[in-house]
């Protein structure tokens, strides 16, 4: 049986006052893309720092490809590519020099591969780091993480600051890395991102892993806020909307209807198919709203 790419047992980092990470038991298989989902301050970055051996656990253990993250931290880093939550300062260094600097620490950068990455992300390496926008700094972080084709990518909110087109390019790169045999551990606070990129998702809240879900389970958790504006004078199919599967919390205000939709949009679209719709807006709720909904559902499911 192949050794797990990531294995943690009772991994804890207690900062006091209830802050930190507690009793994390996690196993990520090789070639898996694992999402680590949670709101800000939930313990995602703490987990990643523990895996990277940057901070020492107050309890439990963490292993990467069977290597202890604390004891064997140098050997671990040979297998890992890392995007930090926030890129540091490199002042007057040019992008090309930052790549050469970190490439040098790994025995030299693959010049052709770096060029390919920079071209894909349209990252001008001749510019000074301090001239880079936050998006370009993030692109450079991605180049640094991918440039040595690591076996494991540990990515702390890697798409923050990237525009949608570059995000698409990043997801494509992630798929290619996986096809080449890499494992990915990706933290995010955006549900749609992990839904799109990951095979499984660990949901962390207040320092504790509350659930590990596959994609199907994830779909059942998520919902959308929908606002429909009907044309003036048009008939509003209120009853049909309320009766549609997955549609809840329907509120009618003049010729506007607000509701939430769980699962597929098909029943709602079917309900309004004959009405004259002037505008329809759907937006994803915050992760905290999803958690509240998730816990409400869990309580309902409990036997009284």
């Amino acid at each position, binding site marked *: 049986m192949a050794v797990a790419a990531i294995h943690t047992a009772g991994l804890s980092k207690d*900062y006091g006052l209830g802050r930190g990470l507690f009793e994390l038991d996690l196993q990520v298989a090789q070639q898996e893309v694992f999402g680590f989902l949670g709101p800000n301050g939930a313990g995602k970055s703490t987990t990643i*720092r523990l895996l*990277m*051996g*940057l*901070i*020492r656990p107050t309890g439990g253990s963490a292993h990467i490809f069977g290597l202890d993250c604390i004891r064997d*931290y*140098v*050997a671990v*880093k*040979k297998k*890992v590519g*890392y995007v*930090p939550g*926030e*890129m*540091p*300062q*490199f002042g*007057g*260094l*040019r992008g*090309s*020099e930052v*790549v*050469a*600097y*970190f*490439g*040098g*620490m*790994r*025995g*030299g*950068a693959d*010049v052709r591969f*770096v*060029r390919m990455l*920079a*071209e894909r992300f*349209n*990252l*001008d*390496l*001749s510019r000074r780091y*301090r001239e880079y926008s936050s998006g370009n700094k993030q692109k450079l972080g991605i180049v*640094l993480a991918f440039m040595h084709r690591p076996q494991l990518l540990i990515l702390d909110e890697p798409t923050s600051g990237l525009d949608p087109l570059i995000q698409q390019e990043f997801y494509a790169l992630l798929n290619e890395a996986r096809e080449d045999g890499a494992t990915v551990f990706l933290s995010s606070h955006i549900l749609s991102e992990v839904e799109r990129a990951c095979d499984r998702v660990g949901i962390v809240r207040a320092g504790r892993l509350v659930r590990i879900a596959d994609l199907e389970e994830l779909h059942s958790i998520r919902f959308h806020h929908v606002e429909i504006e009907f044309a003036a004078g048009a008939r509003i199919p209120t009853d049909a909307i309320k009766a549609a599967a997955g549609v809840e919390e329907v509120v009618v205000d003049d010729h506007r209807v607000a509701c939430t939709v769980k699962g597929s949009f098909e029943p709602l679209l079917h309900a309004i198919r004959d009405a004259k719709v002037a505008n329809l807006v759907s937006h994803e709720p915050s992760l905290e709203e999803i958690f509240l909904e998730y816990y409400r559902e869990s309580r309902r499911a409990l036997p009284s």
Partner: protein
Amino acid sequence: MVAYLFALRQGRWGIAGFGAIAFLITLLNAAGFYQVAGHTTAEREAFARSIDVLAAQFSVIVPPPMRPDTAGGYVQFRAYGALAIAFAIWALASASAAARGDEERGIVQAVLAAGISRLAFVASRAGAFAIAATVAALAGSAGVLVGVASGGESISPAAALEAGLVLVALALCCYSLTLLIAQFTGARSATPVAAAVLLALFLVNSLSRTFDWLVAWRRLSPFHYFEQSSPLVPGEAIDVGATLVLLAIAVAASALAAIAFRYRDIGSPLFSLPTPSRPASYEVSRALAWRIPVVRELYEQRVGLLVWTVGLATLGAIFVVLTKAIVEPLLTIPGLARYFSAFVHGDVYPSFLGLIWLSFTQLLMAGFAVTRVARWSAQDSDGRLELILSSPVSRAGVVIERVVVLAVEALIIVSVSGVSVWTESHSQSIDLDRGRLVAAMLLLVPFTLVFGVIGALLASRVPRATVGLLGILVFASYLITQLGPIFKLPTWVQDGSAFKLFGQPLTTGVDQTGLVIMVVIVVAGLVASAMVMERRDIGA
């Protein structure tokens, strides 16, 4: 109000540090006066003559003293001359940080986004600095009063406050000028350009004492107006007109800076040339230096290293010239023998070079170590260390590489400086022992490393407080050597200073015990900091 409080909070360490410096400098000079000047009228007159002759040699840098036979006159000359430079540097650093540094860090954008107008922003920063400078200057005034009281004499508190007021006016003037200059420069060049302007204004005034053709120009210099007041000197008072000129310049420059700030883009100077467009490049730097540990760090810091090397080499040559010019007339005055007897041993010229140049070079090398340690602690706080440690390098390796880089840099700087001093002393017919000069230069490497490893240990333990703590250590260490003989401090206190461990290699050769102690400190500090680094949390 919130903007003022925020600005004050930003400058709290400056207030604490410069307040402590002002208090210590005035206190130690006032108290030290009674140790070196004697107690009888005849002794003090002889002392005053010696100081007059000594000061005449440095008139290029400092104004001549008035009534140095009195504590007030001595403190005005020794302490407030130095404090003027210190406060000008503080003003420079604070204003360039407020004008452009905080802009780079995004603080200015955040403040403006909170609904504070640009005019209010400039006013809050200038106002906060005025409060900070006033607090620090008051500490200096307190030092004068306590120091003079320790000698059983008294000085008018009003005079001490007036001395502080003039200092605040100078600091505000330098602050506002820097603020104004920073509106016309790039963010990175604000500090060096403003520093160059302030240095030029300082030199216009000080050199005008030697070169008559500069006399007409010195009215441009704030330092000229500062020197018009000598309130601590008996019979002298604050020059109200000159002080008002300083305050008027401060107000006018701040107002102009506020107007310029109003019309310029955040992140850009008021006027800028369009940069020509060029095609993007996706190539990695092929410089071999990036691949080699130690060399990569030296290569990255090459510009700073070059500045330090050239600066210290030039300074060394200047000190040799000054030594010749100073020592010759001093040797003709018998009264000075007692003043210098605490310091001078052996041959006169090497002794003076050791006293003036080497002790100053020691201070600069300690300062160099502080700048490098500041870089290490910045790497910790801005996340660069985290990214470095995501590469397959050991934590101990990072510490060792840092210290080795510091050693190599120190060796480069002192080697060039040594060559410069040797060449210039040869042309000045000063007979230096080549072996001792080489030994003195090489000894500066472990001396620098002592502060480097202490800094490495601090950076591994308390990265955010490292620079302040190391700065205090350097300052205290230097003060002990300078004032230990005057105040007759216990031997064990004086021996605890790294400056004392360095000894007087130009005159008495290498102090073997001092060298061994320094090497032991370096090795123990290196091992300890590597061990602490291995166990600590990074970026937490």
